[in-house]
């Protein structure tokens, strides 16, 4: 992928999560336009270089100091400041320690974990599943995002319910939709889908489903089989 050395200003590196091919979604349909041969990298904003500006530097420094005090090293893989939002990429094995510092350190005081979301990047080898936590500090009026990547082959992540009881349902939902097993969760059961459902619907390898619609003799394919732009 080294033929795409597009590094925007202020970013140390780019973060390649996949490759986009073609322009019309359909595969193998005798596309003669030539657009079907397009290849483009999918590049997420990469690590930022300090100083970050605003309160972000303070948060980064306080976190680094308190993590050293707690005897944790290598917890933060990178820090991304993008569109005014701060994201910490954290190693899964250090997630609990990292979140504990975020919650308990008086200078940080992220009292609330408001949401847990998953994102599935099938092409991001060994980092297929990204889990995104949104933290809010009402005390300091700050917001950070914590992102963890785990391989699809070993979909385990420590549960944060003991730390933030609010993530109980959010983790259940992430398990339901992405199949991520939160170790230590008190009752990791499906929450939106029926209990006996097979598969995890928000994964990219799970089809949207739907049936072709017939209208006046013509058949219109289901949305995920239609020719569309990507």
């Amino acid at each position, binding site marked *: 992928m080294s033929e795409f050395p597009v590094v925007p200003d202020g970013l140390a590196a780019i973060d390649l*999560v*996949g490759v*986009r091919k073609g322009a019309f979604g359909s595969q193998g349909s005798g596309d003669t336009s030539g657009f079907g041969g397009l290849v*483009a990298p*999918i*590049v*997420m*904003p990469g690590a930022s270089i300090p100083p970050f500006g605003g309160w972000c530097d303070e948060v980064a420094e306080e976190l680094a100091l308190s993590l050293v005090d707690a005897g944790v090293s290598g917890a933060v893989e990178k820090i991304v400041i*993008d*569109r*005014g*939002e701060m*994201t910490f990429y954290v190693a899964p094995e250090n997630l609990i320690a990292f979140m504990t510092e975020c919650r308990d350190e008086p200078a940080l005081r992220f*009292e*609330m*974990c*408001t*949401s847990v*979301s*998953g*994102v*599935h990047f099938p092409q991001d080898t060994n980092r297929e599943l990204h889990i*995104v936590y*949104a933290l*809010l500090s*009402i005390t300091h*009026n700050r*917001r950070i*995002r914590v992102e963890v990547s785990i391989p699809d082959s070993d979909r385990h992540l420590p549960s944060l319910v003991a730390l*933030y*009881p*609010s*993530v*109980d*349902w*959010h983790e259940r*939902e992430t398990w339901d939709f992405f199949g991520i097993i939160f170790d230590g969760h008190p009752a990791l059961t*499906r*929450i*939106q*889908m*029926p209990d006996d459902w097979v598969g995890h*619907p*928000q994964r990219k390898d799970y089809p*949207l489903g739907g049936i072709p619609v017939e209208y006046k003799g013509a058949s219109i394919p289901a*949305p*995920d089989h239609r020719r*569309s*732009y*990507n």
Partner: protein
Amino acid sequence: MTTTEFTNSDPFSGSYDTTDGTVYNLGGGDWDSIAAAPEGENERIVVNMGPQHPSTHGVLRMILELEGETVVQARCGIGFLHTGIEKNMEFRTWVQGVTYVTRMDYLAPMFNETAYCLSVERLLGIEDQIPERANVIRVMMMELNRVSSHLVALATGGMELGALTAMIFGFRERELVLDIFEMVSGLRMNSAYIRPGGVAQDLPSGAEEKIRETVVLLRKRLKDTSDLLVDNTIWMGRTVGVGYLDLTGCMALGITGPILRSTGLPHDLRKSAPYCGYENYEFNVPTQKTSDAYGRFLIRIAEMHESLNIVDQCLDRLVPGPIMIADKKIAWPSQLSVGSDGQGNSPEHIQEIMSESMEALIHHFKLVTEGFSVPAGQAYVPIESPRGELGAHVVSTGGTRPYRVHFRDPSFNNLQAVSAMSEGSMIADVIAAVASIDPVMGGVDR
């Protein structure tokens, strides 16, 4: 194990008689043996309340473990209204996404649309380019929506506690707001009015006067509702001290909105992280210190009045101008206008693309079918919905469709408080506690 003799045999049953466990006789006549059962045995029963129970506030299922009338354990079962909106959005363009998100929390469609659009706009990097008039209209629509949502909260909450007049009043006043929505967007609910880059269309002529009149009328009518309930002994008896959840509990459970403000913490994202120009409006954040259902009721009443004040300020700030971003690569190309059949595109636009400018036709076609691309990245812009923090975590990989959209719905999070609020209370108080959370199952299940 006690087995009761069958006194009345069922003529339709087979010859098989159960011999396992306690056998109760449907025909009756076995009271002596039931009453003689040892104290404490079989006293705890599990009641399944909902999902089709009129007072569970939508398709919410509650599994209650009861000892007599006391709730020992309360658990929620959700998912009955799950429609896969987030998954569906991954197969539509960014603009089409608005039509989906508006159906999530169906009592607060304007908030869903705004939360989604603000995240998309941040991804596009066009937050500063939204025209002033569009922002004012957004704020006005959201605040009117807050009034209508709180009115339904009071109406359904009142109905669930037996205050049917409150229900009639609430829905009657809500109609006034929905009439405005219909006039402005064409639809009472699910209007898909707020779009990335601005709003779908400008206010029709006469809308400002109608909104002004409605605000005056609403102020008067809201007084009816509050006169009816605020000092009402029965209402207070049902809500004071019920559904108690203090600040510590709210923090631990991630509770936001009126429930958090009923503990005395004035946390409101319109103040702490203003969006859409909320920093330019004067309003108060009502709080209570009671941490109970009555406090939340008072907060909702007060918030409606604050919202009406904001609507007044919006009307004063409305100056003519564009309602959609100037960037032609993002702005929806056509304006709607009412045709002879009551709907349709503007004749001028049709005239232009069909007979004047080939390029305009291509542009229209590309933007409507293909849509615009959004630079790769992720964004989360939370807003203060009637129920608390509502935000869309939107991930783009640079395509014309969202890669992942996750809604942080306040009802979903706040419903986790049902156990904390109602365990140890009477079963009747569960209803009051749930009503004070005001969950909307469309948002919870998405």
